[in-house]
């Protein structure tokens, strides 16, 4: 049976929805519509001259080979970050869910990195792996590995992926742990009595029951890698070397804020917005079917 409440007052439901609607309009619809409008304009940085140019910003954007490259970089970067941060967090959560001494201390430590601002996390990793001074880079070089994120594209990509994953594990860990704890113990015990080993219990009982959490985190993580990682990239590599870590969102930041090209930057955010909306729609349409609530 559907749970529903009947409102006698016609205004009340709208009134209750109002705060959320206001927030959505002010912080999402309004800026998003501004970005769409701005993507059709050509403006100088100060907003003194503003000229309607139609689709010219989009044409210029899709004529840049660097833009397609940043799309590819985004695919690689986001796949790596989302896959790694989800799987590592799940591993940690299952381990922390066991009966451990000082479990709450582990849990607290696991959550800490989430409190670190992206740019700070970036600087931290940058210093640890700075080729000649970093405390982790020196042993790497000592072992004969020519660690050089300043010129080697793979090293630079590894570095931003590590920093972004490290930052996101806490968040995923928190939700996975909560998800794990809400799985009734009786179900797992029943499986154990029927003779299912720990791995079998995990894949056939726990993982499916965890699917709502996993699905939620997948959506959140995709949004995270697409939008929230530019601070890390800016601090660690500045999009380099030779554009190897310039993702789409970093390019929005670089062109708009550093370059003062607001029209082009707005056009890129619109493209990015369309991609993320499409991705989220796909996730809800196809992945959610497999979710068991």
């Amino acid at each position, binding site marked *: 049976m559907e749970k529903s409440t009947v409102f006698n007052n016609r205004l009340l439901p709208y009134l209750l929805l109002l705060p959320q609607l206001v927030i959505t309009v002010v912080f999402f619809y309004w800026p998003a519509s501004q970005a769409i409008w701005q993507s059709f304009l*050509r403006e100088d940085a100060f907003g003194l001259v503003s000229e309607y140019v139609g689709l010219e910003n989009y044409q210029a954007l899709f004529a840049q080979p660097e833009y397609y490259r940043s799309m590819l970089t985004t695919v690689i970067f986001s796949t790596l970050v989302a896959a790694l941060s989800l799987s590592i967090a799940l591993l940690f959560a299952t381990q922390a869910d066991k009966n451990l001494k000082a479990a709450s201390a582990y849990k607290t430590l696991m959550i800490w990195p989430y409190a670190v601002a992206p740019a700070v996390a970036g600087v931290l990793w940058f210093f640890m792996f700075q080729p000649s001074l970093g405390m982790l880079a020196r042993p790497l070089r000592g072992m004969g590995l020519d660690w050089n994120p300043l010129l080697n594209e793979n090293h630079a990509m590894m570095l931003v992926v590590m920093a972004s994953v490290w930052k996101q594990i806490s968040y995923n860990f928190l939700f996975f742990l909560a998800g794990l704890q809400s799985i009734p113990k009786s179900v797992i015990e029943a499986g154990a009595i029927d003779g299912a080993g720990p791995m079998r219990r995990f894949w056939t009982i726990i993982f499916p029951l965890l699917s709502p959490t996993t699905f939620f985190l997948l959506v959140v993580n995709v949004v995270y890698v697409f939008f929230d990682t530019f601070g890390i990239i800016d601090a660690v590599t500045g999009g380099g070397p030779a554009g190897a870590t310039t993702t789409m969102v970093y390019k929005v930041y*670089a062109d708009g804020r550093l370059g003062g090209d607001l029209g082009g930057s707005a056009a890129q955010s619109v493209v990015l917005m369309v991609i993320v909306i499409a991705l989220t729609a796909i996730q809800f349409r196809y992945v959610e079917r497999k979710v068991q609530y």
Partner: protein
Amino acid sequence: MAFRQFGAAAAVSAALALTTPAHAVTEIQWWHAMTGGNNDIVNKLAEEFNASQSDYKVVPSYKGSYPDTMNAGIAAFRAGNAPHIMQVFEVGTATMMSAKGAIKPVYQLMKDAGEPFDPKAYLPTITGYYSTSKGDMLSFPFNSSSMVMWINKDELKKAGVTEIPKTWPEVFAAAKKLKAAGHDTCGFSNAWAPWAHIEQFSAWHNVPIGTKANGLDGFDTELKFNSPLHVKHLQNLVDLQKDKTYDYGGRTNTNEARFGSGECAIFLTSSGYYATAKGTAKFDFTSAPMPYYPDVAGAPQNSIIGGASLWVMGGKKPEEYKGVAKFFAFLSDTSRQAKLHQESGYLPITKAAYEKSIKDGFYEKNPTLQTPLKELTNKEPTENSRGLRFGNMVQMRDIWSEEIEAALAGKKSAKEALDAAVSRGNAMLRAFEKTAK
């Protein structure tokens, strides 16, 4: 007890408030990007100015890095509450210049306010960067520096390099010796890659970075730094990068620490590195002029400046502009300029302050601080060495860096990389030209 103290403090402040002169003090907001010792200098300058008169009060506020400060100023302008004075780094010059209604040119400001102002009193290589082609000064140079070659004398001696290298071939030879003597991760390096290998390199060899006097004479400029000389130089770096005789030091100055730690014994970076070098380097160091290729006719020419200048924002009250003008006159004072230069290591902006420092015998004790001045005044500036002014310069440098990195990583040849840097840069210049009409 605490309450009694509070009461006393309140009484004192009330009394102070009553004795404050009745006429209103005009506040002048100054947004800047100076940290550490330089931040102290900014605050001290404001304090001294405020103490020297009672009509105006300069209020400095730190707004973050150079790009942050500039963006904060632009955002504030768009919101209608820009500061009076904004410190903008040299690469933001074209953007500020093209914003005609947003700024108040300094020459105009001084004329309107009736403050004594002689553009010829300033060092031309410094003011040229911030002036129109007619010589009208648009912004007020504040902290200027140039690029020099920092030398670890102890390590050079150990490696058997007896003389400080003057030319690029000599630098390459010295770097090979250093590498053989144990510097196997870095023979020589530099900070600010595009500034070093494109901008300063071109001016120092008297070859154009772009047409129209490197953009100073108009926004319809085109980049030209893919000449055979540039290609040859980049190719040399690419070859030396393979065994780390040269090791790329990144786009910004984060790798300056490699000089201070002794890893790189030859390092090209800003003359403004002096204060940090003095604080961190535990060895005998000095600065030398940038190297050049001896087979290039006329090299070395003169270097160009880096650093920042103060822009006056538009749309303020005449009374406030008068205060800003007074403040600039205060900053230009010879003994104050000389002192500022000698304390901070920044270049003096007036000829008189430079001459006073020579007369004071300052450079005999501090020869490293004269190196950038010798570079800047080495020869009468030409079309290729007056300065440069390209729109979207912040991003342009990133593009140039990307291409230099691609060449050094072996993804492109030196020629391909420079051709790409030029054509991508030109596309940006055309986009800028359209907005800067």
